C-alpha cells in the first residue's frame, strides 16, 4: 500500500484516500470470492482429483488404537470382550477411496454407453443450432408494429420461462404413442399418417427430446434477435432500399452483419444449452427406451454417480472431467472474444 501512495504523490486526494482505493475492491470481492471458491473453483479441482479414484461416496469411521479395523471387526471385538460398542470411535472419518490412476479413463474408453452418450451430445450440439435460424425467422415475422404485438411477442417467448421439467412433461404428453392419445398423433391422423411412438423408439427418441429442447431455445434466440433488430440502423436500411436491395439479399448483406452481437450470444447460449441437457432426458425417457439410448454425458455422469446400482463417484467424475474439457473449449473461445472487446 505504501508504494502505491508514494508513487502518486501529486494526486490531489490525500494518502489515506489512495490506500482506501487500493483496499476497497478486495473487500468488496471477498465475500463472493469465498462463496465462489468453495462451491465452484475448488470443486472443479476436486473432481479432477476424484476421477483418479474408485470411490463409493462414503467415509470409514476410525477407531482409537486399532488402525485399519473395519466396523465388522470392531463389532466382533466388542462382542468377544462382552461389551458395547466394539472399538472406541475417534470421531474422525477417513475418505475410503482407492487410488486407481487413469483406470477410470481407460474404462471409459472401453465403455459403449460412454460412446453412445458422447455421440448423442454431438447430435444435440448440431441440431440445437436450428434454434438460431428458427429464432431469427420468428423474430423477422414478429418485427412489426401492429395491434397487440407486445402480447404476441411475449407469448412466443413464453416456452422459455417454463421449467425444462414442465417442457419435458408437456412434450411427453404431446408425443404419447397411441393413435388418439398424444395430440401429435391425433394431428397426424387427420392427414392419414401415423401413429408414431417417437419416445419409445431407439432410433427416434433422442430427436423427440431435442425437438422439445428446441422449443424454449428457439424462443430465447428469437428474443435475442428481436432486441438486435430494434437496434438495426434504419438509415442503412433505407439507403440499401434505394439501391434496390430487398428480401433475402437485404437480410444477408445489410441486416445480418448488424445482428452479429445477437448471433454471437445466441451461439453461446445454444452451445451451453445443448451440452447441459439433462432435465429433458431425465423427464422424457430417463435415458431409455433401451439402455442409455438417449443418454448424454451429463445424464450418464449423474446416473453412474448416483444410480441405484451403486455410487461410482470416481467413474462419474471422470465423465464430468471429459464434459468439462469439451465445454472449456467454448468457454475459452468466449473469454478470448471478451478479452479482445475489452482491449478496444
Amino acid at each position, binding site marked *: 500500500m505504501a508504494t502505491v501512495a508514494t508513487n502518486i504523490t501529486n494526486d490531489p486526494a490525500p494518502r489515506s484516500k489512495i490506500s482506501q482505493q487500493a483496499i*476497497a*475492491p*478486495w473487500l468488496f470481492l471477498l465475500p463472493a470470492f469465498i462463496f465462489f471458491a468453495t*462451491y465452484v473453483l475448488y470443486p472443479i479441482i476436486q473432481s479432477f482429483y476424484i476421477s483418479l479414484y474408485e470411490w463409493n461416496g462414503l467415509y470409514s469411521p476410525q477407531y482409537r488404537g486399532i488402525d485399519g479395523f473395519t466396523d465388522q471387526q470392531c463389532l466382533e471385538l466388542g462382542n468377544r470382550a462382552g461389551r458395547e460398542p466394539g472399538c472406541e470411535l475417534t470421531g474422525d472419518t477417513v475418505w475410503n477411496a482407492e487410488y486407481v490412476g487413469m483406470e477410470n479413463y481407460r474404462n471409459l474408453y472401453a465403455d459403449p454407453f460412454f460412446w453412445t452418450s458422447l455421440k448423442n451430445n454431438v447430435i444435440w450440439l448440431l441440431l440445437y443450432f436450428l434454434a438460431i435460424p428458427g429464432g431469427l425467422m420468428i423474430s423477422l415475422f414478429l418485427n412489426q408494429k401492429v395491434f397487440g404485438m407486445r402480447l404476441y411477442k411475449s407469448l412466443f417467448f*413464453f416456452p422459455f420461462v417454463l421449467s425444462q421439467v414442465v417442457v419435458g412433461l*408437456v412434450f411427453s*404428453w*404431446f408425443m404419447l404413442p397411441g393413435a388418439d392419445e398424444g395430440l401429435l398423433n391425433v394431428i397426424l391422423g387427420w392427414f392419414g399418417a401415423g401413429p408414431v411412438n417417437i419416445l419409445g423408439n431407439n432410433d427416434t427418441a433422442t430427436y423427440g427430446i431435442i425437438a422439445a429442447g428446441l422449443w424454449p431455445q428457439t424462443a430465447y434466440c428469437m428474443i435475442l434477435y428481436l432486441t438486435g433488430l430494434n437496434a438495426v440502423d434504419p438509415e442503412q436500411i433505407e439507403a440499401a432500399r434505394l439501391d434496390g436491395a430487398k428480401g433475402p439479399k437485404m437480410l444477408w448483406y445489410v441486416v445480418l452483419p448488424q445482428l452479429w452481437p445477437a448471433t454471437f450470444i445466441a451461439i453461446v447460449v445454444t452451445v451451453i444449452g445443448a*451440452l447441459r441437457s439433462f432435465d429433458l432426458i431425465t423427464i422424457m425417457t430417463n435415458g431409455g427406451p433401451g439402455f442409455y439410448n438417449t443418454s448424454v454425458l451429463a445424464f450418464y455422469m449423474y446416473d453412474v454417480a448416483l444410480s441405484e446400482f451403486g455410487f461410482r463417484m470416481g467413474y462419474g467424475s471422470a465423465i464430468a472431467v471429459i464434459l*468439462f474439457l469439451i465445454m472449456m473449449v467454448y468457454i475459452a473461445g468466449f473469454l478470448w472474444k471478451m478479452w479482445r472487446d475489452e482491449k478496444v
Partner: protein
Amino acid sequence: MFPRPIEQYSAPVRIGYQLLLPFMLLVWLIPLLAVMFFSIKSGNDFTQGNYWGIGEDGLQGLGNYWTVFTGSDMPRYLWNSVVITVPTMIGAVALSCMTGFALGVYRFKGNLLIFFMFVAGNFVPFQILMVPVRDLTDQMGLYDTRMGLILFHIAFQTGFCTLFMRNFIRALPRELIEAARVEGVSEYRIFWYVVLPLMRPAIAALCVLIFTFIWNDFFWAVVLTQSPESQPVTAGITAFNAQFRAMYHMMSAGSIVAAIPPVAMFFLMQKHFIAGLTLGAVK
C-alpha cells in the same frame, strides 16, 4: 426497419398478416394448449381412453387444481421453492452488486482475471461440481435441506450476476464517481449512496432472472435433496407424477401449478426480464 413495415403493404397482405399471427401462435403453443385441456378434463376420460373428447363427466373447471392443492404434497413443494428461491435471489444479487462494483470501478492488477474467473465458472457443466458439492453439503450436515441448496445456488449464480453487474456499472458515467472522490466521499459511501441507487434497473433485472432460474432448477434439486420436507417443486413433481401415475388430468394440473410463479414473474416484470437476457445482444 427490417422487414418493411406491414402498413406499407396492400390491404390483402395486411389482413393476411393479421390472420396469420394468431394461427402461428396457436401452432407454436399447441403442446401447451393440449396440456391445459388435459388439466381440466375428468379422470374417467383417461381411464376410458377418451383423451380428446369430452365424456359424460364433462369438464372439471378448476376441480383438478383444487385436488392438487388439497390432496397432494404440492403446496409443500411450492413453499419449499419459495423458501429456496427468495434468499438465493437476495444473496446472489447482493454479492454481485459488490463484485460488480469492485470489478467495474477499480483498476487493479488481476481485475480482468478475477472477472473472467466468475464468467467461466458460470458456464461450467454442473456435473464437474456435482460430486464435491454433494459431499461438501453432506459434510456440513445440509444434505436434504433447503439451506444446502440456497448456499450452493447463491455461490453459482454469483458468476452470472457478476458478469451482468460489472458490465452495467461499466456503462455508468465515471464522472459521478470521480466527482464524489474529489469531494472526499469514502469508497463505501460511494458504493452505497452513488452507485447502488443507479443500479436499480440491473438489480430488478437480475432478481427476475435469478428467480426464474432457481425456481426452474431441477438438477441440483435432485442432487442435494430427496424428501418432501426440502424438495422444490421441480423435483417434487416427479414424485407427484409417481403418486398420480397415468392420471394425466392431475399431472398436467400439477405441472401448470408448478409453472405459474415464474410465468407470473415474467409477465409482471417483462421489461427487466428481457433486458437481463439480452444483455450484450445489442452492441
